């Protein structure tokens, strides 16, 4: 049964994607996506019920698979190189060449490593990622069905590019699952590179100059990440002759050994997780259609990066690398939060917030204690659900009003209440207790007890995040919507269903954080979860419920009464939302948020934070030599 589950999780998306490509009819595509989603969800839950376990499914353990993986290690860079040459993109060419060189050198010079015992070793971390990919990722895929239709209607394409799009989209999910489950570094790496490829294709999907530019930026950065990963893997292979991930992450293995490979692997994770100074590729990903950015930001791609770091966290505990990694993660959290504060582009707010929160998970990985890792896993799961929700909401609102600027989203609660309220719930869920994100952050702070700088940076970042998200939610809730031409709102069940399910996931996961945390901890620690800090959460949920009920009652009561006219110094208004001001004119009550751009301006911070984070990354790699 397990083998079947794993097979469906890893292979079926690819098959379904290919079917999409072949069948081309929208109806079939819809059916396939829905079927895939259902299948993935069922299988992931099935797997989760069995965790922890080991398995050796044939299609992963066979010699053939390994050959394919090794071949892919050459095919992918070669493809990147080709595209780089076609585009004449120097950085892509350089890094893909490097990758290619490394792969070929590895094939030539490396001895065959020890056979991997179990092709699949599933623990809490793996299964969490698999669940996230299977559920959140599928929901996004479902959301993409009506979205892409509308998107293409808008672009007025002669020939639909959707089949290819869904092929990549679905395959992406499969590769992510493969990465989450495989226990062989070579398979893992192949999947890792495959996600790079998928993201490259998805970002460049619209094929506009901006999209191409962003896609190639993503490509060169991730190719660099690939270089790090591959060199790390080769070094591991050279040092120990093993490629069994679970064998590698055993701290005992590393006593006295050079930590350089770990540093390189973790650096690869950081690139993939868009940590500063590599945040730019993720920002560029915003130009892609919403489902793509949602996928990259929430459930796939960047999660691969943090997954890698979390996977290696046991060997990072109490090492210089770990400390510096935690520091760099904390710094990214701080800087990302600060930069998200200065943005008025809603998707950029989301993007910087993603970067920041991934930094937080990286902190957990850097600390590496079981408590920290558990907190990291909670963050990973909750963040995926919440951020996915936010992206879908923003995408939906963008299609409604034709703008993704926060200023234009003002008062959306009046225009499309369901989406706007869901977005508010998501935004507040990012920062307020007792939701998972905040609780995870809090657990991280307490886990980072030994490192005051990390703690302080997280506190600063968390304050910035609160401001950013409350403002985000507040702007959506804002009283008087500006007059914008109303467009027909495309609200299909396939839009609303994923939104609502995602909302349920975000809230559910947010609330379930203590239990997830308990599940992720070793038994001894798990018992203590509810007697320490997390124990506060269940009573708080009851308080929340009470507050919710009271709030709803009052809301019902206040909805019934007419609203008061706004205080405008007593000035009369000729029509709602205006006042009769100077020169006897009708002045619209325009509102704008304060972005304090002189403090939180993007360009200044990019330079400052990029430099500092780059130095930290170098220090981390250098830390391997200490």
């Amino acid at each position: 049964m397990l083998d079947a589950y794993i097979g469906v999780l890893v292979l079926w998306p690819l098959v379904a994607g290919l079917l999409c490509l072949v069948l081309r009819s929208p109806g079939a595509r819809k059916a396939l996506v829905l079927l895939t989603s259902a299948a993935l969800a069922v299988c992931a839950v099935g797997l989760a019920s069995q965790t922890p376990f080991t398995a050796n499914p044939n299609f992963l353990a066979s010699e053939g698979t390994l050959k394919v993986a090794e071949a892919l290690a050459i095919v992918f860079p070669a493809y990147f190189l080709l595209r780089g040459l076609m585009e004449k993109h120097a950085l892509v060419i350089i890094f893909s060449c490097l990758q290619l060189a490394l792969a070929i050198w590895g094939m030539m010079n490396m001895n065959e490593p020890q056979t991997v015992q179990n092709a699949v070793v599933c623990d809490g971390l793996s299964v969490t990622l698999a669940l996230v990919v299977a559920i959140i990722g599928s929901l996004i895929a479902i959301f993409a069905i009506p979205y892409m239709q509308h998107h293409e209607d808008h672009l007025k394409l002669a020939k639909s590019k959707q089949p290819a799009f869904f092929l990549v989209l679905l395959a992406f999910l499969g590769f992510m699952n493969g990465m989450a489950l495989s226990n062989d570094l070579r398979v893992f790496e192949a999947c890792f590179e495959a996600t790079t490829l998928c993201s490259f294709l998805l970002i460049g999907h619209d094929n506009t100059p901006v999209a191409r530019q962003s896609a190639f930026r993503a490509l060169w950065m991730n190719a660099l990440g690939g270089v790090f990963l591959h060199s790390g893997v080769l070094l591991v292979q050279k040092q120990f002759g093993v490629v069994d991930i679970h064998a590698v992450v055993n701290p005992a293995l590393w006593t006295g050994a050079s930590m350089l490979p770990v540093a390189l692997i973790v650096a690869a994770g950081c690139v993939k997780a868009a940590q500063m100074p590599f945040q730019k590729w993720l920002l560029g990903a915003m130009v892609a259609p919403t489902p793509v950015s949602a996928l990259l930001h929430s459930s796939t791609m960047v999660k691969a990066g943090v997954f890698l770091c979390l996977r290696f966290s046991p060997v990072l505990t109490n090492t210089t690398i770990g400390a510096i990694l935690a520091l760099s993660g904390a710094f990214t959290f701080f800087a990302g939060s600060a930069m998200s504060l200065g943005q008025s582009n809603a998707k950029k707010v989301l993007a910087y917030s993603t970067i920041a929160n991934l930094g937080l998970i990286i902190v957990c990985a850097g600390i590496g204690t079981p408590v920290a890792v558990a907190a990291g896993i909670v963050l990973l799961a909750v963040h995926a659900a919440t951020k996915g929700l936010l992206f879908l909401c923003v995408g939906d609102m963008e299609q409604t009003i034709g703008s993704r600027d926060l200023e234009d989203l003002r008062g959306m609660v009046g225009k499309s209440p369901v989406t706007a309220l869901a977005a508010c719930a998501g935004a507040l869920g990012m920062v307020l207790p007792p939701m998972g994100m905040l609780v995870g952050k809090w657990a991280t702070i307490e886990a980072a007890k030994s490192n005051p700088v990390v703690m302080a940076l997280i506190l600063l970042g968390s304050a910035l995040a609160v401001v950013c998200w409350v403002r985000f939610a507040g702007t959506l809730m804002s009283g008087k919507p500006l007059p914008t031409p109303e467009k027909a709102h495309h609200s299909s069940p396939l839009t609303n269903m994923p939104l609502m399910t995602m909302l349920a996931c975000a809230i559910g996961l947010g609330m379930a954080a203590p239990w997830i945390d308990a599940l992720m901890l070793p038994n001894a620690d798990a018992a203590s979860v509810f007697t320490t800090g997390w124990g506060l959460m269940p009573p708080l949920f009851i308080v929340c419920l009470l507050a919710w009920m009271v709030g709803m009652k009052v809301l019902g009561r206040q909805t019934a009464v007419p609203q008061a006219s706004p205080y405008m110094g007593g000035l009369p208004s000729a029509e709602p939302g205006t006042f009769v001001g100077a020169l006897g004119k009708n002045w619209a009550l325009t509102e704008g948020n304060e972005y304090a751009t002189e403090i939180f301006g993007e360009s200044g911070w990019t330079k400052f934070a990029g430099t500092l984070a780059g130095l930290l990354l170098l220090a981390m790699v250098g830390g391997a030599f200490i």
Partner: protein
Amino acid sequence: MNLTTFYLAVAGLILAPLVGGLVSGVDRVVTARLQSRLGPPLLQPFYDVGKLMSKIIAPASHWQGMFVRWALVASLAADVVLFAGGDVLMCFFIQAASASFVAMGAFSGSSPYSKLGAQRELFQMLCYEPIFLVSVLCMAKAAGGFDANTIMNAGAQPLLYKMPFIIPGLVFVLLVKMRKSPFDLSACHHGHQELVRGVFTDFAGRDFALLEVAHWADVVVILWICSFLWATGPLQMVVVALVALFVIILIDNVSARLTWRHMVKVAAPLTFVLAFANLMWLYLE
């Protein structure tokens, strides 16, 4: 959870707003005296809230009532956590939730003053949160735990000896939280400011009364946490809280209101750095 904790929690629920109201009353009387006035009766804040409760007025937005109730619940929850000896960090996070709901309520109103007030409220949160939390980290480091109980029972020596540099930070936080000059940026007590009553402009009647109660609860939490600095006994803690209160009122009366730019660029970074230096000192010791 044992029974004592439960009783303490209930006490927090009931006592904190009452004490907060009294603090507010004392504040007004002392302020009046500093200004050479007689001032209102001690129980005036309660009358104010009672009056507001009985007013009939249309809400500026129908969301406001909901956010106000949530803010009140959050403030009281923070009180309860503290009274029951819970985690101070979480207590403060819950309080931040309360402030967020107030800001959300202000956002959902329609007056530009209320929106600007909400923005400034958020900028204030941005400034005081890290400072306060770093101060709490100092206390936690010195006491060996994040729980209020642990910190209060930290030992015979007052924590103040180990953390003199967090005092400017705590004063800053108190000034902001109690809406006192020079940092009464988002809403000042008497409403003589450019934002009218800032974040509270659109709240009225019962909603406003409940916010006032929430504010009292907040003040109690912050004062209490400040009094951890000399937690050698209940009496000492009360004295520390009163001294802190007096210092805040004094500062309010000898300074002009600054701008939020100044707060974000100068005052907050400065106090944060001081508090952080103290934290580092504790670690390097």
